[in-house]
């Protein structure tokens, strides 16, 4: 095996400065998505141990109650309840949830400002807290329940099993392909040792490879499913075991329904 001469010599190379912001930002955003998927799975193990079915059902009900309520007292009670639930979560989850809730509330205020200028103060004082409560409720559900448990819980709402399977597979492949593209971006970063005048060409190459990879994975998975006897029908197993935490959660939510009815009547 004859080694070329340049390979035995030390490379005398002084790199030129170049901007890698786009690659770095893409890496960071992919890392965030993958970490979010991993964390939602970890959360359920450490969380409140409340059945995902109950969480999905009552979160949906709570959103409906918030939307139809005309009582500011009820909305305030719901916000207090949600914030007390939020306070038992991890610091980074509290920060992220409140950040999103406040940001969207501010955006809602901006949208409602013209109506406030025309004298309709009611909407700004009612809709903004409603938006805040809804976003907080959804984020609490999202952070305290794994995505797979949420899709399984959809069975209660008579969502077809095959749709649940497709959702599960989608989540799985977001993670797998996300991890694959993250490694491709790492590779591009490690091989970008100089001035790359055609960064977007490299990125389109990554996108193309991802497309081919996802097609290959889909074909392989379909073949594997066929080999395991898949004929287009799928039954999702649902097993609900009530724990003490579930019963407390149900009681709290029934109380909230009573509060809603009470303030609706008076």
């Amino acid at each position, binding site marked *: 095996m004859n080694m070329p001469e340049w390979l*035995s010599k030390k490379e005398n190379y002084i790199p030129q400065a170049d901007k890698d912001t786009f690659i770095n930002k893409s890496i960071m955003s992919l890392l965030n998505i993958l970490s979010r998927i991993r964390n939602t799975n970890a959360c359920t193990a450490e969380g409140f141990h409340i059945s995902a079915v109950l969480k999905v059902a009552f979160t949906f009900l709570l959103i409906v109650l918030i939307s139809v309520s005309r009582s500011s007292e009820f909305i305030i009670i719901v916000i207090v309840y949600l914030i007390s639930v939020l306070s038992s979560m991890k610091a980074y989850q509290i920060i992220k949830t409140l950040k999103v809730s406040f940001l969207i509330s501010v955006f809602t205020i901006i949208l409602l400002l013209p109506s406030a200028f025309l004298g309709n103060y009611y909407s700004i004082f009612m809709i903004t807290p409603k938006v805040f409560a809804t976003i907080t409720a959804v984020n609490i559900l999202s952070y305290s329940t794994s995505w797979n448990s949420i899709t399984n819980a959809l069975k209660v709402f008579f969502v077809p099993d095959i749709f649940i399977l497709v959702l599960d597979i989608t989540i799985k492949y977001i993670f797998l392909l996300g991890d694959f593209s993250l490694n*491709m971006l790492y590779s591009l970063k*490690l091989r*970008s*040792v100089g001035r790359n005048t055609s960064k977007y060409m490299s990125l389109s190459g990554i996108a193309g*490879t991802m497309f081919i990879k996802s097609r290959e994975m889909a074909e392989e998975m379909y073949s594997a499913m066929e080999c395991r006897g898949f004929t287009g029908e799928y039954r999702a197993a649902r097993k609900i075991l009530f724990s003490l935490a579930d019963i407390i959660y149900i009681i709290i939510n029934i109380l909230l329904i009573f509060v809603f009815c009470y303030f609706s009547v008076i």
Partner: protein
Amino acid sequence: MIEIINVSYAYEGRTALSDITVSISRGEAVALMGPNGSGKSTLLKLINGIVSPDSGTYKFDKEEITQKRLRNTKFSKLFHQKIGFVFQNSDTQLFCANVYDEIAFGPRQMGMGEREVEARVNDCLSLLNIESLKDRQPYHLSGGEKRKLAIACVLSMNPDVLVLDEPMNGLDPRTQRWLVEFLTELNKAGKTLITSTHNLELVQEISSRAVLFDEDHKIAADTNTKKLLENIDLLKKVNLIDEYYHRHEGNEHSHYHIHNYGHKP
């Protein structure tokens, strides 16, 4: 050349490296061994600056490598030129339209003229015996061809250190043998080699020194590769080998079994 001092690293609370101290000199051929999930790949990522230690120090050529230091693009590019990383999954490393462009990617960025780039690409193609693939699309190649191409596109940048993550995985025995000889020649040419592997049959040929990780993500041994392979108790303790009951010519017996490691009855 590479100094890793008391380095620990965790992925979202899960320990991957625990108080690792290891130093590698220029021209060495070091193998990282250990069971799955013991931290070998994380250490390779750390050496390449993909992840930074939570605690401890990583120095390359006496310069500390930190995220802050790597934000300086000139420093980062020079650092990445000096260390070439061959990923475990070659698919993640190939993103150009054809084999020629893939190998030329690094040299072109290094500001070489097109004639010099062509010479370097041709050298790499003939060195890895893949001249016939020059105009092929990387995603249509076989596993072995992709691995050769991944090595070629890293070699074309002429790095001082070559880091390989499980290079033997998924290769047929003939290509494995070829790769062993190739890595040996590269090491003779002065390249520092850091290889993570499970292949205990070939590890002795591609490394003179082995660093063994245990399941607690710590270094269980850092010694001569031959000596390490003879230390059956230690290999068993870290769960790299197991006791294997089987039958030879009607004679049932057991002995320690090392995956991919040849044995005589």
